[in-house]
């Protein structure tokens, strides 16, 4: 038989849900009831995106230790409790990445099965949206959903998200329509409330945090004029290129792995790349962008991380700027480029030779 924990190990993905305690208790119970009479409960939290600063790390650590406390309170002598935080040094743009981490963990520790909290969610996204069960089933991992009663009451994070959505929806309505009489205001408020209830688990990728949201908003005040200025410059350059009789362009296609975290920052990065000097985001897979550039100068800006730095400062603050550009990091490789560009870039551009459209 070998080690006890190998034969009867259970993984419980941890997330801030109202049914966490019951799920952990159920898992501990299940391990105790199992043959061999003991085993290990692995409480695992996936928490990517703590690259810059320790913002949010405290909350995650508290959550994990809370889960551990539930488990030790419920556990008898035969059950060992282990906790683990995964993915802290990675950037995720897709909820599925969280599940893949869990799958890797299960394989690594040779665990028996996964017990899922019915209210498990990757922070702010509704559990119905990304189907963890599908990923687990595809990887041939046994799982069960803990039979715990789900409560009707909204959780704290849900209230925050709902409140923010309601405020934004109502503010937008007032700004656009400018209603003045009570009936319009009341119906507007009711509509905003319905929107908030429906979208509370859809609209945000992670629960907004007042401090960091205000900081991002403050930095946005700097970022937006900067972006507008870059757009204006891009246009003047573009007008020159387009109206020039010989049309001096040298298009290239590059794959860039952007050092930005979640969906919002990747979107901001991709869109600012598209809006600024001669670069255009063609495709994204996670944080990996396929960028088409019109001329070598635009490509150089991209390689040096001009846009990336701006977006990182926007979302992560000052420390976000202390990172070399994608080319220096080795996160940029050409996909399609002309012979001229290859000669011009020399040995520094990378090991890929210029070729036809796709790999």
């Amino acid at each position, binding site marked *: 038989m070998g080690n006890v924990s190998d034969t009867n190990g259970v993984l419980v993905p941890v997330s801030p849900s109202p049914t966490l305690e019951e799920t952990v208790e159920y898992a501990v119970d299940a391990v105790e009831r199992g043959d061999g009479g003991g085993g290990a409960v692995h409480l695992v939290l996936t928490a990517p995106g703590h690259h810059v600063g320790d913002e949010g790390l405290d909350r995650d650590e508290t959550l994990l230790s809370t889960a551990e406390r539930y488990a030790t309170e419920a556990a008898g002598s035969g059950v060992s409790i282990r906790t683990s935080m995964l993915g802290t040094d990675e950037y995720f743009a897709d909820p599925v990445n969280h599940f893949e981490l869990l799958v890797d963990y299960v394989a690594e520790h040779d665990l028996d099965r996964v017990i899922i909290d019915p209210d498990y969610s990757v922070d702010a996204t509704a559990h119905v949206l990304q189907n963890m069960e599908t990923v687990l089933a595809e990887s041939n991992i046994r799982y069960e959903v803990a039979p715990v009663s789900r409560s009707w009451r909204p959780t704290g994070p849900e209230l925050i998200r709902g409140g923010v959505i309601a405020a934004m929806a109502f503010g937008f309505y007032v*700004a*656009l329509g*400018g209603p003045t009489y009570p009936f319009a205001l009341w119906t507007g408020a009711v509509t905003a409330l319905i929107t908030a209830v429906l979208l509370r688990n859809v609209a945000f990728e992670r629960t907004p945090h007042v401090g960091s949201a205000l900081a991002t908003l403050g930095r946005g005040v700097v970022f937006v004029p900067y972006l507008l200025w870059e*757009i*204006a410059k*891009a*246009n003047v350059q*573009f*007008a020159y290129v*387009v*109206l020039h009789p010989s*049309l001096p*362009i*040298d*298009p*290239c*296609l590059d794959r860039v792995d952007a050092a930005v975290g979640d969906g919002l920052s990747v979107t901001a990065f*991709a*869109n600012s790349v*598209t*809006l600024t000097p*001669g670069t*255009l*985001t*063609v*495709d994204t897979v996670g944080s990996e962008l*396929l960028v*088409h550039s*019109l001329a070598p100068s635009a490509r150089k800006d991209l390689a040096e991380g001009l846009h990336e730095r701006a977006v990182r400062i926007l979302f992560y603050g000052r420390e976000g700027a202390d990172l070399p550009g994608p080319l220096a990091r080795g996160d940029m490789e050409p996909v*399609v*480029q*002309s*012979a*001229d*560009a*290859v*000669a011009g870039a020399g040995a520094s551009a990378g*090991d*890929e*030779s*210029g*070729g*036809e*459209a*796709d790999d």
Partner: protein
Amino acid sequence: MTLLTATIVLFVALGVFFTLVAAVGVLRLPDVYTRSHAATKADTLGAGFTIVAVGIYFGTTGEILRTALLLVFIYITNPTAAHSITRAAYSQDVEVWTTDKNDSAAERGGDSP
């Protein structure tokens, strides 16, 4: 009053100029990717200047707020649209035009790294 009118005319003229550049770009540039550059960039600034002119013309806080919102949405949707068009092209394996292809078939794919 005349200064105001002159400012409005200036912004509309700039808007028209950059929209024209976008149109010329779409016509002159060689493939779907480069044409998308034209459609997003010049167009975005063209629309931007025009909207600024509209905001100045109406002049009241409400209208300025609304035109500013209009601009915000153009700046979000425009790159997104360009992205989805080029993405569709790329997934259909539309070739990326490079300067090599201009040298009329004589030496294509000279694969020196």
